[in-house]
């Protein structure tokens, strides 16, 4: 049902959008996404159409976060974490491309570097460290050749199933589709998503970070209650 609606939407848009003879349009299967602890199916699917043969890049950008990067350093012969940098950075950055070329790779890495705002002095090594770390926890991803053909007869239509990591931050996400042509960089209008996390972990995280005092008092009450209850149960 979703797929049919999206295809109808794309066709109707095709009649309107036409940029320098290159048509570029996409939509998503869901706008409100709830990430749960366990999942088998993709969180959402991007559907699109293009008649361009150029390299295409879909970019998913998460809400901005203030991040501290720490590295292990040796202090008096002992290993300790020390702060190496502070950043303001989108919590998630996923890139999906239809090709796998050096040009695309260069453009994506440039885009990543440009999006990191360092608090204090600019330092490319710190940015590189952050990108590496984000990549290791799936919050930063480059997936080449990820555009899938919907139908062999309609080769200009594509779909990309998206699996978001469990640690994706909640909030407003933007998705954009660009033609990475060095002569003519074109970006289609953005689509926006709201990501919500479900489950006990997410609730506790939200409480601990947004209402920390209430969370502290609540934790203490729970602990006292459990201790009191245990005392009654095990009293001989």
């Amino acid at each position, binding site marked *: 049902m979703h797929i049919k609606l999206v295809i109808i939407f794309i066709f109707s848009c095709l009649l309107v959008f036409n940029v320098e003879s290159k048509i570029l349009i996409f939509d998503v299967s869901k706008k409100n996404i709830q990430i749960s602890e366990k999942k088998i199916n993709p969180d959402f699917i991007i559907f699109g159409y293009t008649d361009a043969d150029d390299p295409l890049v879909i970019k998913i950008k998460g809400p901005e976060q203030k991040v*501290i990067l*720490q590295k292990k350093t040796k202090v008096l012969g002992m290993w300790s974490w020390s*702060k190496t940098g502070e950043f303001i950075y989108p919590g998630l950055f996923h890139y999906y491309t239809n090709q796998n070329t050096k040009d695309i790779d260069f453009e994506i890495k440039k885009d990543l570097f440009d999006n990191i705002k360092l608090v204090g002095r600019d330092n490319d090594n710190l940015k590189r460290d952050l990108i590496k770390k984000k990549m290791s926890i799936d919050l930063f991803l480059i997936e080449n050749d990820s555009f899938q053909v919907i139908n062999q007869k309609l080769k200009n239509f594509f779909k990309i199933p998206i699996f978001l990591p469990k640690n994706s931050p909640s909030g407003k996400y933007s998705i954009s589709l660009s033609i990475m042509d060095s002569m003519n960089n074109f970006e289609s209008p953005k689509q926006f998503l709201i990501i919500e996390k479900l489950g006990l972990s997410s609730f506790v995280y939200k409480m601990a970070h947004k209402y920390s005092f209430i969370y*502290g008092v609540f934790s*203490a009450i729970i602990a006292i209650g459990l*201790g009191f209850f245990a005392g009654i149960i095990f009293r001989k």
Partner: protein
Amino acid sequence: MSFYLPVAEIEINLLIILFFGFLVGFMSGLFGVGGGFLMTPLLIFMGIPAATAVGTESVQILGSSVSGAIAHSRKKNIDYEIGTFLLVGGIFGSTIGVIIFNFLKEAGNIDLIIKFLYMLFLAIIGSLMLIESSMSLIKEKKLKKKEKRKRTFLDYLPLKFKFRQSRIYISILLPVNVGIFVGFLASFMGVGGGFVMVPAMIYLFRMGTVTAIGTSLFQIVFVTLNVSILHATFNLTVDLILAIFLLVGGVIGAQYGSKYTSKFKGEQIRVFLAIIVLIVCLKMGIELISEPSINSRIIIQDAY
């Protein structure tokens, strides 16, 4: 039964947490100690960030000491006058401790400080305990005549007060300062501090053992309450889910552990405990000096 701990930001098997809670609870019951100084290092070894281990452990200690404190209160084993002075010091020491903890956490050095403090304290406690209990095991117990205690500088401290229940006449500076020290330890190491307070009350204040234990539990409840709320509010280092599982495992373990206490001699129990403490100390030391497997991490401070 893997579960993503939201504050510790680590996926962990909750059955393992329950098991470790049970294990430390068992040892607490067996050895008659709080167990905070064993549980916090164990959490660190499991990959929980040291700061979160400390914050979470204070909640667990709060829960596990409540029933003991109530039981001692019913038996009138708490000296509320001394307890109040210990508490005043404890609240002050723990609050200052949390402020310094926050400063060091921001600077990124808190892990090192916690591990170093643990290594130091465990080495001191373990060695003293091992020497004392080994000597007791080797030597035959000789009955000594009760000697009249010599006066020390502690007897000349000002602001003396008569504590009626314990029948002692000491300066209030003693319980206040012990409270400050223990409060500081509670905020930095995720311990209750009974292992410092009880000997201090027995040997320095000359209180009875049972009253010392009851009064110590009374102080621990309120100081860990303060530490738990402050750590949760300012350092965001309390993982309630982790604390609940530790508490459940710990409470059950303590019941079983206490059943085995009578099967061992006091000296034997202290030797076992000293060996465990020294093993934990050694492991902590190795962690501090060996090359880390993970050499970078990110900490999300605020979501805009």
